[in-house]
């Protein structure tokens, strides 16, 4: 149990995928203009990231490894992620049309979120088992959601702040992201693995 708690703590705070590993920066900058859309994106990404982490582990372990096709990982994982995203879109559309309308275009765009592929590849690299992959994917997703929601709330405040003209818009957003990343580096000494 301690091991899973450590994996969660590690992926959410210490090795945060966005601010420490710098994966998934595209949605981090693109969908953080409004708190509402950021929350929808966080929810959808959490679902997809957890599911794709587990299913790519299964594909790697039971299809690629026995056939000695490990070098085909990248294209296989992309395929798995695309299928999971498509499946998620169908299920959400059927079960909750409201959420489907809120998420809109962001749902299919999760396919191109490099954090999703990054988690799948890191699972293989660090030789995680089934449950470890599950928690690793879920932790990465929670970490992503946490910083995405924090950052969008910050940006809503910055929008009404008196920013010098040269720094307005994307530049102040990038500077804020940098400062947030610095702050998250402070978690580095939290646990020793």
């Amino acid at each position, binding site marked *: 149990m301690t091991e899973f708690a450590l994996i969660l703590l590690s992926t959410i705070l210490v090795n945060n995928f966005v601010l420490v590993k710098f994966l998934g920066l595209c949605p981090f900058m693109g969908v953080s203009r409004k708190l509402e859309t950021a929350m929808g994106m966080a929810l959808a990404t959490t679902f997809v990231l957890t599911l794709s982490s587990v299913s790519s582990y299964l594909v790697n372990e039971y299809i690629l490894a026995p056939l000695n096709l490990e070098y*085909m990982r990248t294209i296989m994982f992309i395929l798995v992620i695309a299928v999971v995203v498509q499946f998620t879109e169908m299920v959400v559309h059927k079960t909750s*049309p409201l959420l489907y309308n809120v998420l809109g275009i962001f749902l299919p765009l999760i396919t191109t979120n490099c954090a999703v592929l990054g988690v799948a590849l890191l699972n293989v690299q660090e030789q995680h088992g089934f449950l470890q992959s599950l928690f690793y994917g879920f932790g990465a997703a929670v970490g992503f959601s946490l910083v995405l929601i924090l950052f969008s709330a910050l940006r809503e405040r910055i929008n009404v702040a008196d920013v010098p003209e040269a720094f307005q818009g994307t530049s102040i957003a990038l500077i804020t992201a940098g400062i947030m990343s610095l702050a998250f580096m402070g978690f580095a000494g939290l646990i020793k693995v």
Partner: protein
Amino acid sequence: MLTVIITLAVIASIFGLILAYSAVRFKVEGDPVVDKIDALLPQTQCGQCTYPGCRPYAEALAKGEADINQCPPGGEATIIALADLLGVEAKPLNAENGVAKKTRTIVRIDEQVCIGCTLCIQACPVDAILGTAKQMHTVIESECTGCDLCIPPCPVDCIHVFEVEPTVREWVAELPEAEHVAPHAL
């Protein structure tokens, strides 16, 4: 090399089958055209189009069973918008369905005369009438859509139609005559 191609093809077709199955399993009932038509209708749910509400009328329109000129509350503006969306010729309102109103109206109940029969409550499509048996009824004016469906059932004729002044949100300025427009505004 051959193993790779075969494996990839097999896995891709398995995923394809899974998606095809879930596309059938999670098929969403609903026609985007119906939603578009429904958005253009005034949502008074008055039933003057002979359908039990705006949504059923939109569905009938999408199937081609109804004509676009059956909505008196929407008037000419709705007919033109529907003609535009469905790609047909606009035509005048069908007189059998009713006449378009110039201004927005609501109904009020003459509370001295009301006997509390609840017949108007059952007729109201938007639940804008408040009251119970043998108690005085009243109309929630902000909910009333002016469909006048409660008037025929009333046994003591205590429901009357009133015109409402347009509110700040509804009011539209009349365009000035061309000669009165200041030159710098042109």
